């Protein structure tokens, strides 16, 4: 086979074509694929170094932006005499803080008192439930009843004292 004929045979490979369906689907898939980043918006080119540089630039810009924002807010607060308003001055803040501290101390004292009182009450109630109180003892009541002389309720001492008070 001559070289020309061989080349003609190779040229027949031009008949090979992708199927229409593959071409259509492939086109759609590629064109719907969103590109990573348009180079127009990159600060420098591509590659590892360039990407690192891009990242560094972005970080620096973000930091600058934050500093400007915070610095701007500081200047606004300082210059617009907001600090001079009642409620913003440092003396007022100190007094207010002292008052709040005192209030807190008082409340803490009360809470402590209530806690102790509650504990004592609990102890008393516990004792009461375990041992009956003395004034309810039937023996004591009987003794007192004897000494009260219910039959002749006149108390000489009381009469003398009343006479002394009225005369």
């Amino acid at each position, binding site marked *: 086979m001559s070289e020309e004929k061989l080349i003609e045979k190779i040229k027949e*490979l031009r008949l090979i074509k992708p199927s229409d369906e593959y071409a259509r689907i492939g086109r759609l898939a590629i064109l719907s694929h969103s590109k990573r980043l348009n180079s127009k918006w990159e600060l420098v080119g591509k590659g590892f170094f360039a990407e690192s540089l891009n990242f560094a630039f972005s970080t620096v810009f973000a930091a600058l932006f934050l500093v400007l924002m915070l610095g701007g807010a500081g200047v606004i607060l300082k210059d617009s005499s907001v600090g001079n308003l009642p409620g913003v001055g440092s003396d007022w803040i100190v007094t207010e803080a002292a008052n709040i501290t005192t209030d807190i101390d008082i409340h803490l004292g009360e809470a402590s008192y209530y806690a102790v009182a509650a504990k004592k009450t609990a102890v008393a109630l516990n004792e009461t439930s375990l041992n009956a109180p003395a004034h309810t003892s039937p023996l004591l009541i009987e003794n007192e009843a004897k000494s009260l002389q219910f039959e002749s309720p006149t108390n000489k001492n009381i009469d003398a004292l009343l006479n002394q008070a009225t005369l």
Partner: protein
Amino acid sequence: MLEDEQKTIKKAQDGEVEAFGLLYEHYLPKIYRFVLIKVSQREEAEDLTHQAFLKAWENIEQYNPKGYSFGSWLYRIARNTVIDHYRGERPQVSLDDVSIDIKAGGAPLTEEINAKIELERLIELMGKLKSLEQEVLVMRFVDDLSPKEVAKAIDKSEGAVKLIQHRALKSLKEILENE
């Protein structure tokens, strides 16, 4: 070459999707053929061709028209995609694996089948050539690239391309004669 190709490329580089669509339509058959002849399997050729165009679309900003033609740039991407896929190993070609679609332009069915068998046989035989020889033959005679364009695509000098072409034709002739 596509009409107003440079303008179309510029539009695609500016992110115009339809412009890249035109480039895709124009170059798809060439790149697909190139890949299919290298890998000899239709499904694999379709996947690798798709990957190659995806890479081209993602990196189109990097294409510099002053360097070489867009076609050469695409062939280079396709070639690297195939190399990456096989990682240095050559695809194993057998006649059973070769499955291609051809468009014989309204020829009778028997003729179309015969043409298909003949082409599949030719691809199989070309698979016995060295990878670089195969690429040069396809780019030079199937897709009509100039030696300069082929040189850019395979990263060799024009002289080297002519030498590879000569050796490839000689080898293929021997393969066909010894068949």
